[in-house]
């Protein structure tokens, strides 16, 4: 049910649900998944923990920021990976890396908030530039910004260290915990991803989120009933940028490195693929899409080699998978899941008769 009842948000506003048990049954799949993820370190290897699940959650967060804008706001912003990349670069330049000539080595509690602030300022500005446009023009403007940032990082050596980027970017040590080690890092990522997921779900039914969906469905009417649609859209970009920025910092801490490719054109398109394949109808879609992507990225190469094909064709597999899912379900995996639920429900009713 958790998947079927929110995206287009049918649940009445303000009906908190009279009973805790109803809330529990409504959210049981989510809670079950959450519990599973919390207990995962007991069973999984470090590789699965960080390189599969951790990476999925980080990519999922960044895709979630795109899902928020595209699903609720109708704004397909290709600049979200760039916002994440800028946050990643900022934490590297302000914090620590293997390049003392560039990095400032400020403590993490100064560098991280500043990095988020810089990235959010950029994401909001990008929103202000593109919020006046619709559809294909939003895509064009945000893609132009993403390309510009990519070439800037590629060609600027004084701040971004050009083609090489930065290596040995350590996750910080605080509260007596070394967040670089796999299990603490996993929990840090899980906490941030879980918080963003719940925040997006919650806000989608708050006045701000409902108004964003109203602006998606009919911006002219939103103006006529008293909303400043432009301001609302820009605020949505700012909200999404916070999530993308945190994701960007975690991405750097997870990979220990950042380079132009982190927020390159390919990464930008991959993020769009993740969000669309997962489905824009519900926040969980971002994480489903990220999971499929990470599995393909990690295992497609070996699988191809095993059946005697060239391993470098893994992008073809990703592309074909994208085609198949979008052809059969324009609303992604979420759409398949919802139709399956609806069919199951209607056949149950049929038996009942």
């Amino acid at each position, binding site marked *: 049910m958790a998947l079927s009842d929110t995206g*287009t948000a049918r649940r*009445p506003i303000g009906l908190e649900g009279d009973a805790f048990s109803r809330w529990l049954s409504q959210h049981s799949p989510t809670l079950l998944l959450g519990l599973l993820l919390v207990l995962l370190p007991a069973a999984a290897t470090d590789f699965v923990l960080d390189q599969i699940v951790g990476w999925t959650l980080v990519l999922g967060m960044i895709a979630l920021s795109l899902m928020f804008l595209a699903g609720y706001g109708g704004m397909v912003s290709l600049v979200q990976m760039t916002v994440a990349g800028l946050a990643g670069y900022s934490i590297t330049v302000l914090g620590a890396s293997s390049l003392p000539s560039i990095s400032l080595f400020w403590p993490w509690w100064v560098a991280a908030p500043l990095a988020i602030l810089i990235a959010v300022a950029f994401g909001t500005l990008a929103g202000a530039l593109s919020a006046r446009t619709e559809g294909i023009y939003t895509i064009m403007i945000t893609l132009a910004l993403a390309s510009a940032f990519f070439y800037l990082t590629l060609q600027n050596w004084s701040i971004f260290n050009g083609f090489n980027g930065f290596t040995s970017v350590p996750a910080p040590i605080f509260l007596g915990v070394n967040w670089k080690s796999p299990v603490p890092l996993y929990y840090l990522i899980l906490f941030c991803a879980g918080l963003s997921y719940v925040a997006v779900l919650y806000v989608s039914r708050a*006045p701000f989120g*409902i*108004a964003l969906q109203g602006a998606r469905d*009919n911006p*002219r009417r939103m*103006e006529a009933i008293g909303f400043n649609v432009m301001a*609302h859209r820009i605020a949505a970009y700012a909200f999404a940028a916070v999530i993308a920025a945190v994701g960007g910092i975690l991405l750097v801490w997870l990979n220990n490195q950042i380079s132009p490719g982190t927020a390159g054109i390919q990464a930008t398109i991959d993020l769009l693929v993740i969000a669309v394949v997962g489905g824009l109808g519900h926040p969980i879609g971002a994480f489903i899409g990220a999971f499929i992507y990470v599995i393909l990225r990690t295992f497609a190469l070996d699988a191809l080699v095993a059946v005697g094909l060239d391993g470098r064709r893994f992008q073809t597999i990703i592309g074909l998978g994208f085609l198949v899912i979008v052809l059969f379900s324009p609303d992604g995996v979420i759409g398949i899941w919802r139709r399956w639920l609806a069919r199951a429900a209607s056949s149950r009713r049929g038996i009942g008769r």
Partner: protein
Amino acid sequence: MSSVAERIAAAGAGNAIELRGVSRLFGALAALNDITLTVRPGERRAVLGSNGAGKTTLLNCVTGDFPPTKGTVRFFGEDVTTLPPHERTRRGLRRTYQISLLFQRLSVRDNVYLACRGASRGRFSLIRTRSSDAIMQSVADLIVLVHLEQVADRLVGELAHGQQRQLEIALALAGAPRFILFDEPAAGLSPNERGDLVAILTALPPHIGYIIIEHDMDVALRVVESVTMMHNGRIFKEGAPREIEADPEVQQLYLGGGHG
């Protein structure tokens, strides 16, 4: 009379809507040509005219959807000519649309809720509204007022045409409207639904004035006290419904023109 009262009267505060010399060009076409029109607070006025007479353009100039090319628009004395639509809404101006402009992928309740929220504070709130909040009571009241309680939690895209027209009206009544512009509210309604519409309009609180554009004379002339006739972007007659109905020129141009 004090000088303050005189100044207020001079500023046009005595009128809900005051248009002075308003023109609207679309390229070379003058959709509105030097319109001067005043409507008192609480007054109910029909604007009639054949297709292309400029009726909807007139409403768009008042709401700011398409600002006038020339002239000034005053709302309760305040010059709103250059204000964006949402600012006019916050001052108590409302409108409905000829073709329903609704939020198709949201529920009826969400649609009405947005209209109520748009007219109040907390438009950017990140905190969910509780069912005990006063705004939810206004939402429920409005849904009952337009007889949509049976479908309150359905998506608007699934509603019948008549129900969507009723929702149009509910959105315009949200908040504390001082003046409403109705753009052909009866379009596509069944005779029964037209009866409902007349009942809803006549039951509005007396301080709420409105302008109604309507092709159905049975609806229009039953719910207004004054009529403005438009033709080719100009006003050519104003009067009480009875006078307008009896006017031979009007009959020739409009009532006899196949629209009655």
